[in-house]
């Protein structure tokens, strides 16, 4: 009996193991999207299910006429999956580990190295050969965007439009007026205004219930820009005399920046909870709540969010949008995001499904372009006799514009300017985007990677920020800024710098 039991257990384990291996083999047999599968272009007779993983708030799927329209037109069924963008890369990693990647997912929140590694391993479908069937899609996206991060002659993924410099700095104009202050221009002026916001009762409540500004930790891309960049700090890497230097090694600039933040914390100008914030919206809430006087806002939505929210606390509240402050050397920087977002297609899908996906994306920039912005007439909007357009309730419910951006993403910065918001809104939005581009905070590293950084980079950065946060809140002295830099370097940072610069030399040689 014992023998039988043992045999049974071993058999089950073996079957499980072989099943797992068989799955892996299936994945590996279709590498690099080099499928020889025959397909008839634009023949959509065969029904397909397309699994799509994306970020953002889930969009209503059941009885949504926009989804229904696309599904019917292309004879597909969407299997939609959403995941929080802050943790997106680890989730995609986990899906890969369990051999469970969807047909199409978003790349961009992840490390660029992950993209290159996965491309090398043949995880992504190379869409370039199929673009001959989709000339409008190809033409709608700049060639440089198709090429970024990709090896020559391969287009792994369809580029998504992202404004590199989206968020702008807002200041409470009514508080400036109440205190008889001018819009600040330099970093010194900024501090004086922020100090007055924290101490001179700008909202007239007679209480000490306001602060100058908040922050998202010390080194978040989206939060450090107007301060760190002004002091010459790199967004990630900065080139000095042909060598790339990371912000963790910029002692002089760090001392200036940390000194500024330490003073702001000590003077109650900076949000006391800045180290708890992980997303720009955490800091932005301080503005919406009428607590902070200077914060970032999203130009797409400020008219319906912050401008409305602040009036709940003070009906006279008003925002003005300003240039980032000029640092000692005149440098002005704004939050800048990497420009390599893509939708990638699983290499396992085969040519027919990849073609179907591309056809849907092409429809989104041609025939479907206005549908995935404004929706369907008389369902999502109505046109009055005088030519004006009115938004209907179903537009919020079915979120056509979110289908157009969060899911399909047309290459257009003004995708969020709707007919009912008027021409002036579109014009203002366009101007604001152009204006912000002037302050782009470039990362001089062209996407190069370091093995040491992958292994221990996150841990080193956490310890680095720990020491400097302790300096800002007064638990350590300013001298410890140097300690933070040296600790980071000695524990592996020097290796990271060396590896990146070796790769950078090679990168430059290849291009000369």
């Amino acid at each position: 009996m014992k023998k039988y039991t043992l045999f049974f257990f071993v058999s089950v384990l073996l079957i499980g193991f072989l099943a797992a291996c068989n799955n892996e083999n299936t994945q590996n047999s279709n590498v690099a999207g080099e499928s020889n599968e025959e397909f008839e272009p634009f023949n959509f007779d065969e029904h397909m299910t397309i699994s799509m993983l994306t970020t953002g708030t889930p969009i209503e799927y059941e009885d949504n006429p926009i989804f229904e329209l696309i599904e019917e037109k292309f004879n597909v069924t969407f299997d939609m999956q959403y995941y929080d963008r802050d943790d997106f890369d680890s989730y995609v990693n986990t899906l890969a580990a369990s051999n469970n990647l969807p047909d199409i997912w978003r790349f961009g929140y992840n490390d660029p190295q992950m993209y290159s590694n996965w491309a090398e391993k043949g995880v992504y479908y190379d869409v370039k050969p199929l673009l001959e069937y989709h000339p409008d899609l190809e033409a709608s996206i700049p060639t440089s965007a198709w090429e970024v991060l990709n090896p020559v002659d391969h287009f792994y993924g369809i580029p998504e439009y992202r404004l590199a410099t989206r968020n702008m700095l807002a200041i409470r104009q009514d508080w400036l007026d109440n205190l008889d202050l001018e819009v600040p221009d330099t970093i010194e002026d900024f501090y004086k205004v922020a100090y007055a916001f924290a101490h001179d009762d700008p909202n007239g409540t007679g209480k000490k219930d306001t602060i100058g500004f908040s922050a998202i930790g010390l080194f978040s891309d989206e939060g450090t820009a107007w301060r760190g960049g002004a002091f010459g700090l790199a967004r990630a890497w900065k080139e000095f005399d042909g060598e790339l230097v990371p912000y963790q090694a910029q002692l002089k600039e760090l001392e200036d920046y940390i000194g500024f933040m330490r003073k702001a914390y000590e003077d109650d100008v900076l949000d006391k909870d800045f180290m708890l914030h992980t997303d720009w919206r955490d800091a932005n809430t301080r503005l919406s709540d009428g607590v902070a006087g200077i914060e970032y806002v999203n130009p797409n939505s400020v008219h319906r969010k912050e401008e409305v929210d602040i009036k709940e606390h003070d009906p006279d509240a008003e925002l003005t949008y300003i240039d980032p402050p000029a640092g000692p050397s005149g440098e002005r920087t704004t939050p800048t995001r990497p420009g390599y977002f893509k939708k990638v297609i699983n290499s396992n899908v085969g040519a027919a499904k990849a073609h179907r996906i591309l056809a849907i994306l092409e429809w989104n920039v041609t025939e479907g372009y206005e549908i995935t912005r404004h929706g369907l007439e008389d369902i999502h909007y109505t046109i009055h006799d005088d030519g004006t357009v009115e938004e209907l309730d179903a537009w919020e419910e079915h979120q056509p514009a979110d289908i157009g951006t969060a899911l399909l993403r047309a290459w257009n910065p003004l995708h969020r300017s709707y007919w009912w918001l008027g021409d002036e809104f579109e014009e203002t939005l366009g101007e604001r985007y152009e204006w912000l581009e002037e302050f782009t905070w470039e990362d001089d590293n062209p996407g190069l990677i370091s093995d040491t950084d992958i292994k221990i980079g996150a841990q080193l950065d956490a310890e680095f920020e720990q020491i400097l946060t302790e300096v800002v809140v007064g638990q350590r002295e300013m001298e410890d800024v140097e300690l933070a830099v040296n600790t980071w370097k000695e524990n592996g940072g020097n290796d990271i710098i060396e590896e990146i610069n070796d790769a950078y030399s090679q990168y430059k040689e290849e291009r000369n």
Partner: protein
Amino acid sequence: MGNRFKKTAKPIQTASIPKVKNAREKRKKMIKRGLPIYLMLLPGVLYFLIFNYGPLIGLTVAFMEYDPFQGFLNSEWVGLEHFRRLFEERIFLDLLSNTLILGIYDIIFYFPAPIILALLLNEIRLRWFKSSVQTILYTPHFVSWVVIVGITAVLFSTQTGAVNNLLENNGYNRIELLTDSQYFRPLWVIHNIWNGMGWDAIIYLAAMSSVNPELYHAARVDGASRIQMTWHITLPSIMYVVIIMLILRMGGFMDLSYTHILLLQNPLNLNVSEVFDTYIYRAGILGGQFGYTTAVGLFKSMVGLILVMVANTIAKRMGKEGVY
């Protein structure tokens, strides 16, 4: 008297073939009779095989430079390299001490909490009051850590926390509950107690319901007070459950709620909040180092296994029942 214990001298029937046949038939009969029971057992057995034993194959990842796209078969075999890296890790001792301290806090402060709660609930005589209190106390079990930490932030954030505003308005200093590292461990334990105490008390209440009521009657006749009855009857009667729960908890000694700690973690409490689970997240999941992460997880499980074996042995030596 003597005849009763006299061995029978009657020879055993030696017809061997019919005996085997009988035994086989007997076994067949037994299997047939037990078939419904075996079928009922099958889902449970399959559950453990598929979800608990099958995934053990995945532990081989701890000995590989695992690449999801190469799979188990093609990934590079690195032997004990990941374990060597873990033990040589610069912050290994910090991780170990932080993890052990939180584990000890858990055993000292959290583990007795549901027992005490169950003993108190057991003394309530008004049934409606008892069930209401019990329901209120186990509801937090269904509240996610995100919400619990969020509520704590709303109440205690230094800048805008409601409690801190109240303290300041009344002339007291603000409490930096979330950012001062000295509060991290007590806050973590208090959260755990609030979240899990009511739920975990259920098993002890179930054990108390099986205590023979005659023992209480006898004690009352002898003039025992309620405290004496709790101490001398209730507590000893549920001690076997307490010991089993303790041994099982030792198995998860190093498994701290990763989400909970990560949500409470910030640069100012990193020196006490960085534990193996958060390290796995940072070094492993974010960096895609699955082999290394699995090795760290396996190390934690081995420590848990050793603790279970030690606790079980101690329990048996003390004359109590163990889990095996």
